[in-house]
């Protein structure tokens, strides 16, 4: 592998700028004449707008203009869309209600944007927003999916009667029902997956710049996929044609899914820049982030898992209601369907599966993909059900899982996915050994002697990553292809730029992608630059989410490198008067195998650009591009074990140890992969123990809109983690990569909940397992919700 090649534990190249305060995030951007925006937002969960009076606000100090939704509509700016079509089981298309970038007639959640104020300073814009008088007729609101489906619930969109967006199914209902009817044992459970806010530490921001001389827009934005942003803003929102719109996502401070989507603010700031003639910058504060960044999860499911007399699963039936919030966000429809129900086979051979999914409008923030996106919901449902079944059947959780593991590949599940490789037993065994599973009873006895309750729990997860084969997702309703692009530019002196459509916002692409080049060409990573995040530099790309940048993004780089190498070898063969097939590339040199003839890499590059002596007919230059479309999803999998100690006096859970054993396929940089797992685990543990977006059901007001109310995991909430890898290379892509970005968040919540319920001896516990909930469960009492 070499010191810097594939598999090397290289410290990140990009760190120095972040460590010295030289990172450049959207809010750091300053351009001449720049002014500041503040959005007037709905204080009501559901209301009709009867009038907007901005005259007093316009007269306030520093105010340039106040613009509203009618003006936006008059200028032909389009509505926000969901880009993945789902059909209900009756064949009807999903019922998408209109989402205007600035509300015109109706507001549907607290935080819905109504008007934009542009002023000389952010403080003046904020002051003036207070003076914008919006008259509302309040309407009744509904925040939970169950309530929204009830007769007489407030009607949120005229397009979606009864607030039902779609009623979709997958799998074989009849076969599943038959399996349940014939079962020796059926485990039934209701599963709640709590609503979360992704909370990247950098709040969203955007800077819209309109150049009237060129009739051209530039948009700086906190995006995971600037090219998708440009595509959508051009093709659907009518902001500007693609050649008149440059989107730049500079350093971006985390995303976790929430920065995939194109939000109203980008569109409105670009439009407002043209309208006012000044560059317009908007930066979200944290409360606005809670009010407007797409939330994640929020499922309620009923589960039946059927077993034969030998404890083999013979059927799984799932009925899920997913809350999509007030509007359908960009990929919201795909999350509770093709990213969720297709993973319900887990690591197990289940002959019959049926899932029904209803999605519902409520007066809450739109819900879309958050780290894991559908796969955490599937894993949590399956792994709590498996644990419950093991307890009911009186066998060990490991034995029940082992009995049902898929053991030969490829394996076709009843819910679309075709697993290509894996070794679930290896991860289970490694995790149990690392956790000293067999020594648990003794540790439990020690805890009991100290008056504490100790529990241990496991979770065996699988996910589908490397999103995704374009033709396959197209046939399932996706509005875009999910390939990736790359361009490898070798400069005349041999240094290299790699342009990628992937976007790095913490993942370390500037290091790992350079390691790939170093591995192939033997050049140091210091001579390789990774270029991303600017539609003027990189022609097209699909961005970073769904753990796709290694498996898909790097595969595109491999294809481009193949072409570069082929041309370089032709040139070298010509210069050294050798046969092209005898040329090998090693340690930054092109050699004629079996001889002492050698040319340094830079000389071949130089020859390509001087073009004094190239093979007949060859074009000068050394630059190649490639598009890579994956042939299948990839299937990272693993086993996580949590061991906890609960204080029965307070209900507080302490994590004693957390073990993760993962199969990510081949690994480029173990240091970075471990970091991805750590971060995912923290978010999953946050979901299980701390985090939940709560609404007041009567008023629709969000109750958790700051870090005083929404419990983010802090350093002293978490343990150090014990990690290991049991990698089976992915056969589906040239590097054998599966992806590692989401695993931690997917696999950890059920492991923890299984451990806590093991400790307290009752299964009746929902996430987040706060001390109050755990204490209440220990008392055998209903939790006093109002007091929480």
């Amino acid at each position, binding site marked *: 592998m070499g010191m810097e090649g594939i598999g090397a534990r290289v*410290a*990140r190249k*990009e*760190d*120095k*700028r*972040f*460590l*010295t*305060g*030289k*990172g*450049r*995030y959207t*809010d*750091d951007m*300053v351009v001449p004449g720049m002014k500041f925006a503040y959005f007037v937002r709905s204080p009501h969960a559901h209301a009709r707008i009867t009038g907007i009076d901005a005259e007093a606000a316009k007269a306030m100090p520093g105010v340039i203009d106040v613009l509203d939704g009618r003006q936006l509509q008059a200028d032909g700016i389009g509505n926000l869309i969901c880009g993945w079509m789902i059909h209900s089981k009756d064949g009807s298309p999903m019922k998408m209600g209109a989402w205007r970038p600035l509300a015109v007639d109706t507001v549907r959640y607290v935080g819905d944007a109504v008007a934009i104020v542009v002023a000389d*300073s952010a*403080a003046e814009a904020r002051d003036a927003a207070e003076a914008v008088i919006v008259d509302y007729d309040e309407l009744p609101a509904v925040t939970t999916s169950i309530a929204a489906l009830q007769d007489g619930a407030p009607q949120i969109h005229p397009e979606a009667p009864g607030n039902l967006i779609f009623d979709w199914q997958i799998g074989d209902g009849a076969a599943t029902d038959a399996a349940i009817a014939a079962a020796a044992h059926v485990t039934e459970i209701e599963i709640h997956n709590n609503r979360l806010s992704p*909370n*990247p*530490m*950098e*709040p969203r921001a955007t800077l819209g710049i309109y150049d009237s001389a060129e009739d051209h827009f530039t948009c700086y934005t906190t995006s995971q996929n600037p090219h998708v942003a440009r595509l959508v803003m051009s093709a659907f929102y009518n902001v500007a044609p693609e050649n008149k719109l440059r989107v730049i996502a500079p*350093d*971006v*401070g*985390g995303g*976790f899914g929430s920065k995939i989507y194109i939000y109203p603010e980008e569109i409105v700031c670009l439009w407002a820049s043209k309208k006012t003639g000044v560059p317009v910058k908007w930066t979200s*504060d*944290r*409360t606005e982030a809670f009010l407007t960044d797409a939330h994640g999860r929020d499922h309620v499911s009923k589960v039946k898992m059927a077993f034969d007399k030998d404890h083999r699963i013979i059927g799984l039936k799932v009925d899920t209601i997913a809350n999509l919030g007030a509007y359908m966000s960009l990929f919201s429809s795909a999350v509770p369907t093709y990213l969720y129900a297709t993973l319900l086979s887990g690591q197990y051979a289940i002959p019959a599966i049926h899932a029904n999914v209803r999605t519902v409008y409520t007066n809450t923030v739109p819900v879309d993909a958050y780290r894991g996106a559908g796969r955490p919901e599937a894993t949590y449902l399956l792994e709590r059900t498996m644990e419950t079944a093991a307890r009911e059947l009186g066998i060990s959780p490991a034995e029940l899982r082992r009995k049902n593991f898929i053991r030969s590949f490829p394996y076709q599940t009843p819910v679309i996915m075709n697993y290509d490789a894996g070794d679930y037993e290896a991860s289970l065994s490694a995790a149990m050994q690392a956790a000293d599973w067999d020594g648990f009873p003794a540790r439990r006895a020690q805890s009991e002697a100290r008056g504490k309750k100790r529990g241990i729990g496991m979770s065996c997860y699988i996910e589908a990553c490397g999103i995704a084969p374009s033709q396959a997702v197209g046939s399932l309703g996706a509005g875009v292809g999910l390939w990736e692009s790359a361009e490898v530019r070798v400069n005349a002196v041999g240094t290299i730029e790699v342009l990628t459509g992937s976007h790095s*916002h*913490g*993942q*370390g692409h500037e290091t790992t992608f350079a390691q790939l080049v170093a591995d192939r060409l033997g050049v140091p990573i210091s001579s390789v630059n990774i270029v991303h995040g600017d539609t003027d530099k990189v022609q097209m790309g699909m961005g970073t989410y769904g753990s796709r940048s290694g498996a898909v993004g790097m595969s595109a780089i491999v294809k481009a490198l193949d072409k570069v190498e082929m041309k370089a070898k032709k040139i070298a063969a010509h210069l050294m008067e050798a046969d092209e097939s005898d040329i090998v590339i090693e340690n930054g040199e092109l050699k004629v195998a079996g001889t002492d003839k050698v040319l340094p890499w830079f000389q071949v590059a130089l020859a390509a650009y001087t073009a004094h002596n190239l093979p007949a007919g060859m074009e000068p230059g050394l630059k190649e591009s490639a598009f890579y479309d994956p042939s299948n999803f990839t299937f990272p999998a693993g086993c996580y074990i949590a061991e906890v100690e609960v204080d029965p006096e307070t209900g507080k859970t302490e994590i004693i140890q957390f073990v993760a054993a993962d199969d990510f396929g081949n690994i480029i940089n173990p*240091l*970075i992969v*471990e*970091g991805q797992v*750590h*971060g*995912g*685990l*923290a*978010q999953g543990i946050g979901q299980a123990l701390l985090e939940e977006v709560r609404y007041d059901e009567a008023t629709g007001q969000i109750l958790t809109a*700051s*870090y*005083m109310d929404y419990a*983010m*995991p*802090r*350093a*002293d909430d*978490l343990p*150090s*983690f014990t990690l290991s890898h049991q990698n089976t290379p992915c056969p589906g892509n040239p590097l054998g990569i599966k992806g590692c970005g989401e695993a*931690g968040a997917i696999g950890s919540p059920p492991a923890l909940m299984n451990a806590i319920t093991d400790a307290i001896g009752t299964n009746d516990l929902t996430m987040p397992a706060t001390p109050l909930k755990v204490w209440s469960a220990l008392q055998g009492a209903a939790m006093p919700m109002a007091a929480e």
Partner: protein
Amino acid sequence: MAKVTLTVNGRTMSGECDDRTLLVHFIREKLGLTGTHVGCDTTQCGACVVHMDGRSVKSCSILAVQASGSTVTTIEGIAAQGELHPVQAAFNQHHGLQCGFCTPGMVMTAVDMIARHGGALDEATVRHELEGNICRCTGYHNIVRAVLAANEEMHGAARQAAE
């Protein structure tokens, strides 16, 4: 409007600002030092930590006018002549950062923490004292490693010199 004069990273700098301007906004917008970040509105996240007269403070919780006359060190000011501070180097070596947004505050907090404890730092103390700095990327695992390694580097070297 108020005139504010600060010694920032060794240089005396002045600027005019609203009475209500927070120190963090003064540093970012008037002085153009954008390494100090704003991640919340409630003094919880710690992305804005700087050193003021030798103590770590959240620069979102103090007015610029209150800070006038003081000596401030920001993330831009702790690497000497292009050499990373041992804490910065340890964060790089131990992968203690991902997106980099919380990193300036984390580093400034860690520098202060290591100085205050005079070498006597363990994992529990580091985790407890990082409570005021939120990171969403790393799960803190490698941040804790980096702080302990930097502590060892700085104080271990001092101990060796003393012996």
